[in-house]
């Protein structure tokens, strides 16, 4: 039982590490491509193609260059988390009402202030949705980490499958399913919480 708890924590940490790295890389990248729109199409196409590569295959291919262990798993998770994070940050920021941007500029905001005070707060719910998708995907892919010598809840599932031991399989599968579902719900709650009050459904602004 203690083992499972430790594996669960490890599983979450690995997933979070992958998503965290994707945030560090993805958000600046997304902001960058909102300024240089020609880059946007290219970046989206690349991340789109990366997404179609089966996770097992990417994991295996990276293993050959990065070796066995958690570092390979985390890099794989980062790559898969990039698409939802970059895409949502990009569409969140570019989807903002032009009038709002103009108003901000008109008030004398610098580009940095505009980003910090207007663009990021308004786009935050969309960005959070991207993070939620990324996290759930990462938890799923992390179960495959066992193949390349990584940790997490994949180990009992995989080993149980080898020796056809249902209870061992379930001891990994059930917590893996649970943390994915809990993350989905928790992050969805957070997404609602960061939505500015004025933007929630049936927003006022009638004139």
């Amino acid at each position: 039982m203690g083992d499972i708890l430790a594996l669960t924590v490890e599983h979450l940490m690995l997933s979070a590490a992958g998503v965290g790295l994707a945030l560090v890389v993805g958000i600046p990248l997304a902001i960058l491509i909102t300024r240089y729109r020609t880059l946007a199409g290219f970046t989206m196409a690349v991340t789109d193609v990366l997404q179609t590569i089966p996770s097992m295959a990417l994991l295996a291919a990276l293993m050959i260059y990065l070796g066995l262990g958690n570092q390979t798993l985390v890099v794989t998770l980062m790559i898969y988390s990039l698409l939802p994070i970059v895409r949502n940050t990009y569409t969140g920021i570019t989807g903002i009402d032009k009038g709002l941007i103009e108003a901000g500029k008109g008030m004398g905001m610098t580009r940095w202030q505009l980003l910090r005070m207007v663009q990021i707060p308004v786009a935050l719910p969309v960005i959070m949705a991207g993070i939620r998708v990324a996290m759930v995907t990462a938890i799923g892919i992390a179960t495959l980490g066992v193949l390349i010598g990584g940790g997490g809840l994949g180990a009992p599932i995989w080993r149980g499958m080898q020796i056809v031991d249902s209870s061992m399989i379930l001891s990994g599968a059930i917590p893996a399913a649970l943390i994915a579902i809990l993350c989905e719900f928790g992050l969805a709650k957070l997404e609602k919480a960061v939505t500015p009050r004025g933007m929630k459904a049936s927003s006022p602004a009638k004139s």
Partner: protein
Amino acid sequence: MVKFKNVVKAYENHVAVKNLNLEIPEGELVVLIGPSGCGKTTTLKMVNRLIEPTSGSIFIRDRNVKDLNPVALRREIGYVIQQIGLFPNMTIEQNIDVVPRLLGWPAEKRKRRVYELLEMVGMDPEIYAHRYPNELSGGQQQRIGVLRALAAEPPLILMDEPFGALDPIARESLQDELKNLHSRLNITTIFVTHDMDEALKLADRVVVMNQGEVVQVATPETLLRNPANDFVASFIGKNRLNGDSLQSVVEIMLPDPVTVHPQMGLAEGLALMKRKKVDTVLVVDEQRRLLGSVAVETLDREHKRARTIGEIMNQDPPLTTIRSQASAKEAFDLIIGEKLKYLPVLDENDVLVGLVTRNSMVSALASAVWGDVGE
């Protein structure tokens, strides 16, 4: 042709139609008119059973509609709506012949009918039959909407504010066309509108409704000469101001001023003011009760310190307001005497009903002196 007998439509917390009795003879074009929420559209939709009455009956040629299959009933009644609702996946020809197709007309007859109808309104079938709705202008689309309703030669047509969303020129020409078609085909027509000019122009008889009740049924001529009461008179009189009618402050105000809620963000507020080209907005709560105002200068000054409109409203001097029962004269005196830029108009519950500005005053005066010079 159509007879309403003690028809009532009640919803949970209001009555849309109260005990309606009305008879519409064969071939007549009847216009139902009244302010929004008066029950005119509900009345119309009860005829083809899109809405079922709570009690009472409606007869079409002495058949109670309740006894008819709604689908079959609707196929023998033409129906035109304000949003036009042409099927975007069908060509003009397919749109027009929907009901004939539902009724199983042979293809040859359907095609003849479509061509005949298009020619009737001066649209060349060779050009238009195979186009799609999104390739037509709004006026053309509604012309097709009307033809579609006529296609199966129904004895009755229902039209729900059909020209309300069109530009004035298209509206005018479609009204002429409808008048024309009606005098040629003599199809009984029930037409709903809130535009008195339209009603007077089209109707054989006008039915004025208010708060679910029929106030007056009369020919346009009688309606103009002998309005049944003040409500009808004021309804006819709207936009027909004459010198001595500038009585109430309501007649010189803008009915729909730019308002915001206190929780709106500053940047959003500023964007709204830019878009609406105003330099002050009124702040109201959910019930539209007036809370205060914010000027654009205040917004500019405070945007570093505050986040929402609520935090910065009322920094400007307190608002002078006026009740909606007040006379136009009082509003004039206040604005001129106190050198106000604007004057919010509130009803007895402090709900904002409008705004008097120097501009709105001047244009009300102008139209009173020289007639309707446009809004």
